[in-house]
């Protein structure tokens, strides 16, 4: 990675609006999609899909606020913005927070992905070996900077367009009565589920880092709305398919409901369609944890006053393998860790931009800071 790959403003790092939308969408859609139908069903039964729409509304508002904040300093990422308004040390502190946040984000998703592979396809292979496999493409992609990440998202989205179509086959098993009556237990369970659904939309905080790279910034607000809507549509599609095929009680018994439901599809020449599907879905998961890895590298470079980004990237990737080798979290630990992490995520993606926006709005009322 030449050093200017990390300069958000330079011409060769510009991304198009499509790349912007798909990068955000990619970071949102990942391991969560596999378990979300069951997670929703456990709390609010088959009305869970209504909570998805609410979660979407909240995340759109949060993304729009982030865009508003980023507009205050369009040349740089959130780190430059904070350094500009609040001084270098505040910038460095933010960088530290984001290093920790993104590294954990990337690690937990990668680890979850490896666990899914292990439980569905490769029971005998130790997780760190699997992780070792995936660090090669990750290295090549992150090395290329935001533009390559954007292109990767585009290619992966194009490559996976067949998957929802294949899942439409399941509609012949569908039982539309499962959805009725709508709101059978009132609004309360739905509201309780919103907490879960807003976590699944986490990932739009990548706007902090890719906004300055965006070519035409006036479309940013529309872009984030489209990105969130895309994610919502995918979630709704998966959730509804699962709800329609499985009965309301049955669905709570599956952890990875989406994979289990795909298992129903069978051909005369192909059994276990879920394995093929999961293998291809790994492409989609991979683009969930690659952007945070980039963010981690970017912040590390800011924190340590420059240095070689490749080195940091290598250290992060090696660190992930070593952590997995030593700690080797099992499924429950991974679930707990993600649950703990989601609080962190809510703070970073929902609370932090709101506070920042408030502070900046008040600050810029006074002439002194208007630079």
């Amino acid at each position, binding site marked *: 990675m030449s050093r200017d790959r990390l300069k958000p403003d330079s011409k060769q790092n510009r991304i198009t609006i499509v790349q912007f939308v798909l990068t955000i969408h990619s970071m949102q859609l990942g391991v969560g999609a596999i378990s979300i139908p069951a997670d929703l069903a456990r709390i609010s039964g088959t009305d869970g899909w209504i909570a998805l729409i609410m979660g979407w509304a909240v995340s759109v508002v949060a993304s729009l606020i982030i865009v508003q904040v980023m507009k205050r300093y369009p040349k740089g990422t959130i780190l430059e913005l904070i350094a500009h308004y609040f001084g270098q040390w505040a910038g460095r502190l933010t960088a530290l927070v984001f290093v920790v946040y993104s590294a954990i984000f990337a690690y937990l998703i990668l680890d979850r992905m490896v666990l899914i592979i292990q439980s569905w396809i490769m029971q005998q292979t130790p997780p760190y070996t699997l992780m070792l*496999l*995936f660090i090669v*493409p990750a290295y090549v992609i992150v090395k290329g900077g935001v533009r*390559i990440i954007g292109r990767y998202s585009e*290619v992966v989205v194009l490559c996976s367009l067949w998957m929802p179509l294949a899942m439409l086959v399941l509609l012949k098993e569908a039982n539309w009565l499962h959805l009725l009556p709508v709101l059978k237990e009132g609004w309360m369970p739905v509201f309780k589920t919103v907490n879960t659904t807003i976590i699944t939309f986490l990932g739009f905080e990548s706007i902090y880092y890719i906004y300055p790279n965006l070519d035409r910034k006036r479309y940013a607000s529309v872009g984030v709305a489209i990105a969130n809507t895309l994610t919502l549509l995918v979630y709704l599609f998966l959730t509804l398919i699962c709800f329609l095929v499985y009965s309301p009680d049955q669905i709570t018994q599956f952890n990875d409901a989406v994979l289990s439901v795909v298992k129903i599809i069978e051909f005369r020449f192909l*059994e276990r369609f879920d*394995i093929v599907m999961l293998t291809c879905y790994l492409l989609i998961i991979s683009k969930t944890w690659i952007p945070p890895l980039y963010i981690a590298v970017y912040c590390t470079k800011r924190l340590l006053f420059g240095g070689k980004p490749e080195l940091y990237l290598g250290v992060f990737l090696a660190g992930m393998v070593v952590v997995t080798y030593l700690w080797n979290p099992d499924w429950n630990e991974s679930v707990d860790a993600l649950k703990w992490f989601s609080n962190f995520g809510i703070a970073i993606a929902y609370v932090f931009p709101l506070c920042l926006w408030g502070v900046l709005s008040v600050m810029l009322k006074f002439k002194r800071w208007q630079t």
Partner: protein
Amino acid sequence: MSIIWRIFKLAAAAKRLSARSSNGGPADERGELASGLERNLNELRRVFSHAPDLVVRTFPYKQAGRRAALVYMSGLTDKNAVNNNILRELMFHIADDAASGELPVTLGKLQTCSSWTQVERALLNGMSLLFVDGMGHGYALDTQGWPQRAISDSQVEPSLKGAHQAFVETGESNIALIRRYLSTSELKIKEYQVGDRAPCKVSMLYMADITEPELIQALEKRLLGLEIDCILNTGQLAELLEDDPYAFLPQFITTERPDTAASQLLQGRVCVVVDRSSSVLIAPTNFVAFFQGIDDYSMRWPIASFLRLLRFFACFVAAFLPGIYIACISFNYEVIPLDLILSIGQFRAAVPFPPFIEALIMEITLEMLREAGVRLPAPVAQTVGIVGGIVIGQAAVQAGIVSNLMVVVVASTAVASFIIPNYDMASAVRLIRFPVMLLASLFGMIGIIVCVMVLIARIIGLHSLGESYSTPIAPIRVRDWRDVFMRLPLWTMANRPRSIRTRQKRRMGSGSHGGDEE
């Protein structure tokens, strides 16, 4: 890796610099021509010692009343022109206006040389040098005529409906072939000399009103920066010019076909014609351009679109089919229904090798057969086909070395790799399947998907002349897709593809000749 490359380059540059300063400057300072004929000829004989093909003919130059000498390399010149248009005129003819000082030579191209470097270059390029006693300069007369191949059909890229003329080994003829398609003064040509020891004429062709000037400058900068003693063919030049020397995919198209070159020029690309090489380099290029053939545009569009899709599918098959087979057989057999796996097991029962080794044996045999076929003269090559088809194909199965199914898989892979129209791309795809097979045998489907990820990452990270290699897929340019996976009717392509930056966007309809209306 790029850092190591840069260090290498730096070190090489430093070395060259020091070598140059110790030599006392470049070859240009070999000196000027003297005015005495004998002195010049002696110097010439000294420079061209041990060159029996150097012909020196001294004769009285009738018009000026002085002695003169004509010097040429006997194999590189057109003897007819030398005898009839130069010697005869000079020895016997006196022009009507002798006072004007015009040379009485009936040749078109004529230039004066005053330094020995120029003389040497002109002589070695097949020009005849005329020295006149008492003159401080010589005349280089265009009598080039070296052994040349006739213009014939393309061997590497045959086409059904396209033109049956392919490039030959002379740069000028190749440029003429392109000019026949683009008879417009907007076709501009810039010439460069590449190579320190044996300079080779390299011409850059572009359409002035279409091609983006930045691309021309980028290529020019790279051409001028080349430091090599000699280039032998276009492939070598392509390797020196490309953006990423470690990539396994070709980053420029090289073609033998003038019509392909013309069509690429019209799309706003730059064409590099290398003298002495029968293929032409086209830059910038992208991944999908390797799947377009010139025949696509002379066929009905539904058929052309079908062929396009077939090629992409073939590319996938050629790269991944053996890997998928290995993964399904040795790793993820739960994917295959029970009845099917039992019948596969029956085939495989006699085979002692694991699927990976079995595939490797067949693939390597196949690659050997192919390579043998390429290098052998045509009549013998048929024998290779028979040996490969009957002996190895059938006998290997009967002997229980490989299974029937593996032969089917490997054979379809081979056929698929022949469908890709560009030879460079086809060879690259052939190479991809070995790592895919290895990872598939170690990690099954997961190994394959990791290969896919690495492949995608490499392709989207590549650049050709600074332009994205993966356009119009990433960055997505949906408008260009009408000429990517499909070949929609020509009237839908009124605009030039966006994936190549061009000055002029429209290609058909009003304004296509005079440029865009601003």
